[in-house]
């Protein structure tokens, strides 16, 4: 009896600490939302007046709109390239011998481990030679390299829970390897692929460091422009944009979760 009581108290502690951690993690993110509806022409919290003026400022500014467009296009293209590429890479690693797999896994994780600033400097000097700085192609290539590890890691963990005999069975029944992969394996790691795609999208959309160096001019990303604006004229437009970005990220996350849930319900 006493033990059960003890466990209940432990559980309560966990709840309290867990809630606190979540609170401190999320609060700084959420604080920009009320700030974005402020009527004042500087960032204030709590806001003293209410208005949509900073949203209007954002949506009517050609500069901001162009940067938003660049970022969204870059994120969509990065997702479109990194997802199939990362999935195939994960599949290849899954099928290879354990020795190759463990070595390759280290290489694959590299872009996450290496400080982004180093990658950014390297990419910048390489792009200078190739003429890719300040181009959409350049941004997409760099972001794809950053996003790939996330896709590979999520899809590989998905493949680990998948009975690979199914693909062999499909092939023995007459399916070519590609057809078996597409009709039998992919539908069963779909959720991992979707999660990987979501992470790739967010990786690209949120990326600042590389964008600071290799994007600019016509092809500046929204993160770069926000950074500049923080330095030059600090006004609540930033808060409005941040709120929009949070909404985009959260909707994407909810979308992935919903698809995942309908899939498990299917089972």
């Amino acid at each position: 009896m006493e033990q059960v009581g003890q466990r209940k108290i432990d559980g309560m502690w966990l709840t309290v600490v867990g809630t606190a951690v979540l609170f401190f993690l999320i609060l700084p993110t959420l604080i920009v939302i009320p700030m974005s509806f402020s009527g004042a022409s500087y960032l204030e919290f709590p806001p003293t007046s209410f208005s949509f003026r900073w949203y209007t400022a954002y949506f009517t500014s050609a500069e901001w709109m162009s940067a938003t467009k660049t970022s969204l296009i870059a994120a969509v293209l990065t997702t479109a390239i990194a997802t199939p590429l990362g999935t195939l890479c994960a599949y290849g690693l899954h099928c290879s011998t354990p020795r190759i797999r463990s070595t390759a896994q280290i290489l694959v994780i590299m872009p996450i481990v290496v400080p982004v600033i180093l990658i950014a400097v390297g990419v910048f000097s390489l792009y200078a030679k190739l003429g890719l700085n300040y181009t959409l192609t350049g941004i997409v290539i760099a972001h794809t390299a950053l996003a790939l590890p996330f896709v590979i890691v999520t899809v590989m963990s998905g493949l680990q829970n998948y009975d690979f005999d199914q693909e062999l069975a499909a092939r023995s029944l007459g399916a070519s390897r590609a057809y078996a992969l597409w009709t039998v394996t992919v539908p069963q790691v779909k959720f991992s692929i979707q999660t990987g795609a979501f992470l790739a999208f967010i990786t690209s959309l949120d990326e600042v460091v590389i964008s600071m160096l290799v994007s600019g001019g016509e092809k500046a990303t929204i993160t770069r422009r926000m950074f500049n604006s923080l330095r030059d004229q600090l006004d609540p437009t930033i808060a409005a944009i941040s709120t929009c970005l949070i909404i985009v990220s959260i909707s994407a996350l909810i979308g992935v979760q919903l698809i995942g849930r309908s899939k498990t319900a299917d089972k």
Partner: protein
Amino acid sequence: MSSNAQSLPIDISNLCKAYGSVKALDDVSLNIAAGEFLTLLGPSGSGKTTLLMALAGFVRPDGGSLKFGGREMIATPPHKRGLGMVFQSYALFPFMTVAENVAYPLKIRGVSKSDQKTQAERALDTVQLGGYGDRRITQLSGGQRQRVALARAMVFEPQIILMDEPLSALDKKLREHMQIELKALHEKLDATVVYVTHDQREALTMSDRIAVVNHGRIEQIETPERLYRQPHSFFVADFIGESISAPVNVANDRAQLGERVLKSDLPIAQGRGGHRLVIRPELLEVTAGAVPETANDLSGRVKDIIYQGDSVLVIVQHDSAGEINLRVPSNRAGQTGLPSKGEQIGLALHPEDTIIVPEHVA
């Protein structure tokens, strides 16, 4: 064996496959007749699964030849070999219904939707799962899943069906039932079946012939009865059935156990290492008086009597063979005249049951 024009013979010659220094397949040659039910039997790591995977095309041999019906297959990818295959894990597609699973090979072959439906239904009828087409895989029991896997492997009427320990995940009762059912199904189908198992009783029950695999080689290939009664090596004798053994001296085709010359009707196989006398507990005969001259005398003192339900295990201490196990049925006939612990017992091993094998095959 139901031989017919549809099924294909399989000719394997000099197949080799090495993983590093381990020879998974060591120069394997084997001819499987059209329509035959052949079992690859061996302990885990013996190479039996590697051989099956080489037949399926999932393992690329380092060398050798593999022919289906005279056609070389060694470089043919798995999906062009036209095989049906059943896996240990069943490998059913969980996101498809039973009918969609069974129709999968038909869909690939471009069979029309309506034909897919009728053929899948017919296949499900054959495995006694008629009307289960709309069920989900997760709603089926282990035995039912096994049947679906079977239906899927035979729905496109393959001439060769490979099975990789398909019954090992089932409980004992269901497994024994499915063995009989699979055997009956094989007689109905026009297919050569290659079956992999490590369960010797399963192999004896189902096979036309059994190939015993050990260390990447085929130790012996025979019909179940001959394999049981005339093993060619100690490995085969020991792996199949219950037995105890004792070392014997062989010279000029005569084997000696201690001082006594053993009478045997069976040829003594040649091989490396010494020879051993293999004694199967159920082949010994308890004699009332002295052991007749025509049989080998293995009489000794009863050391222990162990009741095991369907039979009684009697452990007898023999002066030169050591402990001998004797199995007698637990009915009245088996128990009549059985001495009690510590008493002398007369044991006869008849010449036709006297198995003498070399330690290793040549």
